[in-house]
C-alpha cells in the first residue's frame, strides 16, 4: 500500500511539474465548440447523478470512482 502511494505521488508530482513546461494545446480554444455543448458534459445534472449513485451504492458491493465526492450514505 505504501509503495502504491509513493508511486501515485511521484506520477502526480511529475504531471504537475510538467505544467511548468510550455505545451502547445493541440485542440485550440476556438476549436472546442463541440466539447462545450452541454450534451458533452460528464455530469450534466449533478442533483440527478448524486441520486443514482446513491441508489447503486446502497444495492451493490462496489463503491467509489464515480467522479463525485460522495458522503455519509448510511447504506449498511
Amino acid at each position, binding site marked *: 500500500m505504501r509503495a502504491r502511494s509513493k508511486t501515485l505521488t511521484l506520477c502526480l508530482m511529475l504531471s504537475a511539474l510538467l505544467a511548468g513546461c510550455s505545451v502547445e494545446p493541440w485542440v485550440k480554444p476556438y476549436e472546442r465548440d463541440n466539447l462545450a455543448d452541454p450534451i458533452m458534459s460528464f455530469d450534466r445534472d449533478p442533483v440527478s447523478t448524486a441520486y*443514482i449513485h446513491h441508489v447503486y451504492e446502497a444495492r451493490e458491493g462496489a463503491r467509489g470512482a464515480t467522479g463525485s465526492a460522495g458522503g455519509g450514505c448510511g447504506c449498511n
Partner: protein
Amino acid sequence: MQLMRAESSRSRLKSLLLVVAALVVATPASAGVLPEDRADVLFHSYDGGGVTIQGPSLLMRKQFAGKFSASANYYVDKVSSASIDVVTTASPYEEERTQYSVGLDYLHDRWTMSMGLTQSEENDYTAETFSFGISQDLFGDLTTVSLGYSLGDDTVARRGDPLFADVVERQQYRVGLSQILTKKLLLGLSFETITDEGFLNNPYRSVRYVDTTTPQGYSYQPEVYPRTRTSDAGALRLRYYLPYRAAIHGEYRSYHDTWDIKADTYELGYTHPLDGGWIIEAKLRFYSQNNADFYSDLFPYVNAQNFLARDKELSAFASQTLRLGMTYDILRGGWHFVDKGSVSVFYDRIAFQYDDFRDLTGSGAVPGQEPLYSFEANVFQFFVSFWF
C-alpha cells in the same frame, strides 16, 4: 494492528498533501471556471424487491465575490421496507433519512479548492462527512487534475436496544483526470480508495445455518463482519461528439476490496438533442460482482466461522439497467432573474439476479435448494432546473 492502520492513514494523508503542494507550485496555463449558478428541485422514487423509497432533493449553487461558489443540498429518503430480508427474518418497517450538505468552492487563477460538509440522520444511524478537494487546469485547459479527501464519522444504533451503540470512521482518497483528446473526444479517469473502520454490518440482519432440530431445517444467528474494510476502484470514461449534434459515452469501472469482492461495471449511453428544446437519452449499464469471502447463503452449523454474512449485497450477483431520459428546455427567453430552465424525467429499470442468495418465502424446499432470488426495480426521477 491499530497502530499500523493509523500509520497507514498518516502515510496516505502525507502523500496527498505532497501532491497538493506539487500542484499548487506548478506553473499553470490558463484560468479555471466556477460551476454555474443553478437551482434544482428533484423528486425521486425507487420501487423494487418490496422496498419503496421516495423523497425530494433540492440543490442550489450560487457564485459570489467573483471567486466563490456556495452550494446547499437537502435530501430525503422516505423508506417503506418489506424486502426479502425483512419478510423472512423480521417485520416490515418505515423510516426516514434526511441529509443536509453545504459546500464552498474557491477559484484562484487556474486552481479550484473545494470543501463540503454532509450530515445524514435517521432514527438508528447518523453520518457526518467532511470533504476537501483541489483541482487544477493544465496544458492550455486540455487537462484537469483533481484530488480529494473525505473523512466520515458515523454512529450506529439499534431500535429497541438502548444499550447498543457503535461507530464507523470512513476515509476516502480520490484522484481524477479529465482530458481533451481531440476536438470531439473527452477522457475521464477516476481512482478512489476508501477505508472503513468500525461496526460495518447491519445490526438487524441474520445469517442462517443448518439446524436439523427445527421443522424448516435451519436457524438464524446475527451477522458478524470484520471491523475494517479497504476498497480500491478505478474508472475510465469516454465521451464522443458524433458527426451530427449528438453524443455517445462509454464507461468501465473495476473494483476490489479486502473482503475479496471484485466487481466490474460497464456503461454505454447515447444523448440526442431534438428541435424545439428537447434532449432525449438512453443508457445501458451492466454490473457484476463475486461474493465476499465470509458470505454464505447457508452455513453448515452455528458459529461456522469467525465472520458471517448473508447480505445479498455481498453475494455474487449481476444487474442490468436500462435508462430512458427526456429533458425539455423552458423559459428560453428568461424570466425575471432566471436566465433559462428545464424539466427532466428519467426512468431506470434495474434487474438483479443473485447467484447464491436463495428465496426463502416459499415452503417445502430442502434447505440450500430453494429457488435463487431475483427482482426488478423501477426508478423514477422528475426534476426542474433553473439557471440564473
